[in-house]
């Protein structure tokens, strides 16, 4: 495999999204990520409710090779099936860990011990291994078996308290925000930092990414603000301390909006000129203080004006005049409105079933050694390959193992 991380081998025991995405970010750059999984207890992402090609007639979503979540979060990995409930399966896992640089999992600490790859065991197996666990709360201790989802981590970590419309209950997320942000990225950054450190020290180490703790880091200066004032910050709505006006404005069509952010007096003048609204062309509004004092009236006037605009056309007209603006977009629009634009976000991948699907591109656009997004593995697709290539096993040995049920 090519890429900047070629030669870095990762044993991936993670499930669902946050963990798998962490290792996928590395796989895109050429790390050999071996997803260890089992047909007996599949990653729920494989049996997802939202399969890649829609719910087909007679398909009860039991096909492990068309799970929607799975294909985004596991692109570019190899799949090796091991039944870790069996002694033989755990023995193979131990050998894989011994032959790898990194192990990533999102498990309670006790589970790692039972699988024979707890902290003291790994020290013996492979003192150079970098082991990352991503528990909800903690790897060991009374909360080690607590569970959570990405949309709950943003709630517990405080982000909902500083988001949304002032004075209203927190707004719902339709998706698992922390699974695509704080948790996979902190885990991948930690792996890279530990790999760099190992070049100096020759030693691996254990890393814990508590998903609660890691997501608190997205609070920015909010904790400082609490300490400074004694009051927890509340949702600011769309108001911004640096820009006024600064909001979403309604455009023509259903649920159609345009974001406009006025940071400078010059940008304000451009907006006034384009709108040609007398209500906005007041000398009192020429300064940020003046605009801030009349924000409600200004927002109402802009609301009335933008309703006649197509949001894309409005954003372009404002951008042409040097005003930061952008259309509110939804996923179907990212995908479908403009095929060229779609390629900005997605990579088209061929599925062995003969159809294509879209995977999120890796936004870390390295120019000389770019990320390469490849298909996620079918279940067990690389079991034979991994056992022969990585562990040097013979076909006979593998057949013997398979007969014990260790490779299910």
């Amino acid at each position, binding site marked *: 495999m090519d890429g900047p991380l070629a030669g870095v081998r990762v044993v991936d025991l993670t499930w669902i999204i946050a963990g798998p995405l962490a290792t996928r970010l590395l796989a895109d750059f050429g790390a050999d990520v071996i997803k260890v999984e089992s047909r007996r207890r599949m990653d729920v992402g494989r049996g997802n409710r939202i399969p890649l090609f829609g719910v087909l007639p007679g398909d009860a979503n039991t096909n492990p090779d068309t799970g929607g*979540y799975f294909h985004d979060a596991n692109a570019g990995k190899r799949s090796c099936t091991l039944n870790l409930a069996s002694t033989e399966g755990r023995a193979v896992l131990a050998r894989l860990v011994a032959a790898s640089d990194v192990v990533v999992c999102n498990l309670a600490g006790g589970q790692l011990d039972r699988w024979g790859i707890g902290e003291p065991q790994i020290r013996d197996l492979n003192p150079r291994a970098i082991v990352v666990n991503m528990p909800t709360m903690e790897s060991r201790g009374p*909360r080690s078996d607590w569970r959570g989802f990405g949309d709950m981590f943003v709630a517990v970590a405080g982000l909902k*308290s500083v988001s949304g419309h002032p004075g209203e209950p927190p707004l719902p997320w339709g998706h698992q925000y922390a699974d695509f942000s704080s948790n996979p990225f902190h885990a991948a950054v930690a792996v890279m930092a530990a790999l760099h450190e190992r070049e100096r020290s020759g*030693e691996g180490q254990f890393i814990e990414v508590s998903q*609660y703790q890691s997501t608190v880091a997205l609070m920015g200066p909010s904790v400082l603000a609490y300490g400074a004032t004694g009051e927890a910050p509340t*949702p600011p709505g769309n108001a911004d301390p640096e820009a006024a006006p600064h909001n979403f404005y309604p455009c023509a069509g259903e*649920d159609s909006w345009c974001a406009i952010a006025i940071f400078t007096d010059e940008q304000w003048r451009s907006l006034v000129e384009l709108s040609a609204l007398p209500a906005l062309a007041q000398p009192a509004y020429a300064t940020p203080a003046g605009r801030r004092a009349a924000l409600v009236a200004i927002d109402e006037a802009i609301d009335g004006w933008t309703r006649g605009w197509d949001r894309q056309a409005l954003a372009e007209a404002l951008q042409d005049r040097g005003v930061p603006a952008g259309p509110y977009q939804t996923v179907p629009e990212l995908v479908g409105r403009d095929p060229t634009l779609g390629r900005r976000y997605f990579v088209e991948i061929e599925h062995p079933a003969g159809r294509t699907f879209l995977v999120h591109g890796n936004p870390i656009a390295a120019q000389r050694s770019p990320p390469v997004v490849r298909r996620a593995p079918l279940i067990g697709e690389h079991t034979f390959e991994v056992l022969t290539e990585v562990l040097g096993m013979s076909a006979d040995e593998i057949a013997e193992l398979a007969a014990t049920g260790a490779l299910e």
Partner: protein
Amino acid sequence: MGATPGPLAGTRVLDLVDGFGAYGTRLLAGLGADVIRVEPPGGSSQRSRAPLWEARRASSAGVAEGTPAASLYFLHYHAGKRGITLDPGRPAGRALLERLLDRAEIVIDNGELARLGHDLDALARKRPPLVIVSVTPFGLEGERAGWLGSDLVCQAMSGMLGLYGYRDERPARWGPEQSSQLSGLAAALGALIGLWRARRTGAGERIDIAVERVCALVTFQMQNASLHHQFGFTRARAPRAPGLPSGLYQARDGYVAFNAWRDPEETIALLAGLGRAGELSALREALPHADFLADPRTHAAIAAFVAEYPRAEFTALAQSHGMIALPVHDARDLVEDPFLRARGLFVEVEQPGVERTLLEIGAPVRFGRTPYTPGRRPPLLGEHNVEVYGELGIDPGELARLARDGAV
């Protein structure tokens, strides 16, 4: 720096960031890298960026000229860095910048190097190698490279806000500077992957991070669903019942995020254990499963149950029964959470010339052997000029001359 160096000790980072992605250089500094922040001689505008702290200055402090304004934004995002001043608009300043670039392993900016006319590809080919990471709203290249972005605009266009809040309501900005936080995470990861290649092959790298593309990751997996399913993923319909669709239920002292609706069977079992399952069981008997899940009475019964408990108590009860619940916190709750306190997440930071320290977020990730080192205050303006320029071989006499010329 503490007694045990962080995993990135000895890594030389030049920080030209003035907005998007500042979390990335904060993170690298916390991981032990030597991050040198370059500011114009008059100071970065970030030193006065909101939220501001109207703290009383220590009466006897005789606050030195150049003491940072009490910007909590600055205090947070530039913690742990060294600071120098430099005017790249002057030939002598530009020469200094080139010497700094020559010595750095990583430079992260918001497109400043390109704006100053540096040939980034030539920089990426130089020896010793340099990893150049630029973080801009829409990338340095491509059809939207010239567009002006902001946190609001990037969130809007990325598709992420298409999943947050209620349909047909004015969209709300998500979180404090989340597009900046996410792109900072991506910048840190890209920098460390590029550095891995640079140290092994001697080849530099240029990474072009578009903030809006990083935010688009939050629409993970939704793309194929919108192509192949009858439903596209957009924001939720307005609330139909307590907890539906937000998953948030009012407890005695605030909200809890509780995914009872994902599996009401477990809720019924929990309630049965407490002798309280009557109403829910009756509804389940009376209604087909899908209707039972969607019926407001189901959620009203759950809500009535949750309302009897304080958040922490309900969370512990649910988790101990294998159900998934987490409390909704604000900044005060975080600081007061015994779990986070016991983990030592919060640290005291000083602000020069100000009477008291403030509590701040510490390590997002726990390293077993080479700890993350939070808590160092950001640099005063030009605080490390003598030290850093001294490392370049510039003696104090020459530095004084450069200062007179306005280069530093």
